[in-house]
């Protein structure tokens, strides 16, 4: 289906590869959702994965932190390489991987029985961290990074579900940041939010990439164009094109990509 031209980084971008997939395949029972993906995610950059519904982008991102395999009937083949190590090799503990690769989900899912403060540090508290000073520091740090601190600093003990949708999603981002991961995966984080809440989250992404590597799945083309440094386009379980966001949106190499971003199908 057309030439698959995968262009890598321009000479000016000296970013190294933080996470890479090698012939990654995934299925649900008999349905082959990913058909062999080879994708590199550059460090400290935002990579967007876009594509029409059913192209496998959500499955792909869920394979990156080994969440996909938690669904009954799900199978993964191939490799995902983090800093040179395949996270799917039998010696690797998935729990430890998930501490290094965090995830923000499509619909905000703060823990309803916990306060805002507890939600922010949930990953630490549940892991057994008790030192109040450490928890306080990390709570403030991660809430600041999620651009939520100013709005909640006086109501930290209130239930997490008292916040608006956009605030809840930022709380979930803070929760993911508090365990100090290296990579943050975001599965359509703004799809349930209004434009202003979306804009706040996009701003936070722009500042987060200085410390983290970010992968964001989105079905919103303009968001991919605004927020990412690199864009990958997927269709029917395959990677069609990958490159600089600027290049993809100005002159995509693959005609399928062109058709998708100009809205001929979607």
């Amino acid at each position, binding site marked *: 289906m057309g030439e698959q031209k995968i262009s890598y980084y321009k000479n000016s971008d000296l970013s190294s590869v933080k996470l890479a997939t090698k012939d990654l395949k995934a299925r649900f029972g008999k349905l082959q959702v990913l058909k062999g993906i080879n994708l590199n995610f550059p460090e400290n950059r935002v990579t967007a994965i876009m594509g029409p519904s059913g192209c496998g982008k959500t499955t792909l991102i869920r394979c990156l932190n080994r969440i996909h395999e938690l669904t009954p009937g799900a199978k993964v083949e191939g490799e995902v390489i983090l800093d040179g190590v395949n996270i799917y090799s039998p010696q690797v503990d998935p729990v430890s991987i998930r501490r290094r690769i*965090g995830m923000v989900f499509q619909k905000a*899912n703060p823990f309803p029985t916990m306060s805002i403060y507890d939600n922010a540090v949930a990953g630490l508290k549940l892991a057994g961290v008790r030192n109040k000073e450490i928890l306080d520091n990390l709570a403030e740090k991660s809430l600041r990074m999620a651009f939520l601190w100013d709005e909640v600093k006086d109501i930290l003990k209130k*239930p997490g579900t008292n916040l608006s949708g956009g605030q809840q999603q930022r709380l979930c981002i803070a929760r993911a940041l508090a365990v100090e991961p290296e990579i943050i995966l975001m599965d359509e984080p703004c799809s349930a939010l209004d434009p202003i809440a979306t804009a706040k989250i996009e701003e936070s992404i722009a500042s987060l990439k200085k410390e983290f590597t970010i992968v964001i799945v989105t079905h919103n083309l303009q968001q991919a164009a605004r927020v990412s440094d690199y864009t990958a386009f997927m269709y029917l379980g395959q990677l069609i094109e990958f490159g600089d966001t600027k290049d993809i949106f100005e002159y995509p190499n693959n005609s399928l990509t062109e058709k998708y971003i100009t809205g001929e199908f979607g």
Partner: protein
Amino acid sequence: MEPKLKLKKDMLTTEYSLPTGISFWRKIVNKLMTVLVIIAVILAIIPLILILGDVIIKGAPALSIGFLTHLQKPPNVSGGGIANAIVGTFTMVGIAALISVPIGIGAGVFFSEWSSSKISTVSGFMNDVLTGFPSIVLGLFVFVIIVYPTKQFSAFAGGVALSFVMLPIIARTTGESLKLVPTTLREASMALGIPRWKTVLRVVISNGKNGLLTGILLSVARATGETAPILLTASTSIYFAKSIFQPTASLTVLIYNYATSPYASWQTQAWGAALVLILIMLGLNLLVKLTIGRNVAGKRMDI
């Protein structure tokens, strides 16, 4: 009364006439259905009201502090009480809870977290069968496995029999409550690098605890009111049991014994005991409502 505003003929270009016949008929049917439904509710409640009324009227005379704190006495001797029966019932239900709550919750966790496996479906079915089992058969079973070999009726055996009554209820309600906890919360926890067992313990159970509590309290209420299994396992006694490996009195068996006796004073005490039992059940039901109510009021979202 003000005259109704009448539409003059020349205010409209077409003449409209309401089909009064049909709407009248519909109104009649509506009223009839409403009346029938109200009658049904009344008929359903009447027995409960009559029973309560009867128990209160007949049992109130027997109530006193002494009644609740003294041991049983022979008929026509004043100062008799049902203290040992109350203690016996609580003891056996307590033993039953100690056995059935941990096992029941564990089974419920299995039903919810491994719900897609075949074992889950099969054991779930078997669990539901056990729920509806005739309790006298459960008592018979415990008689065979504990009472007969030890040649001894005991409170322990009674507790075990009651645990068979409670276990399937707890397992099923726990399973269903935990299944209601959204998957996205489990995923959120796992995505933070929390191992599965901690996720289940600290996130899933904590979010489903209302349902768990309800299930436990309901099964306790059910067990408190059982007679047949206790009859075959704990028998009865006129004293406090000195250890759980001795027979003990219980409210339900005492009611059975006293009510079927020919003595009027004992019959009155039976009504008194029945009233106490019903008050305990009502208390437990109220506790359920209050527990859920309090937990819900402070939250935006109810799971």
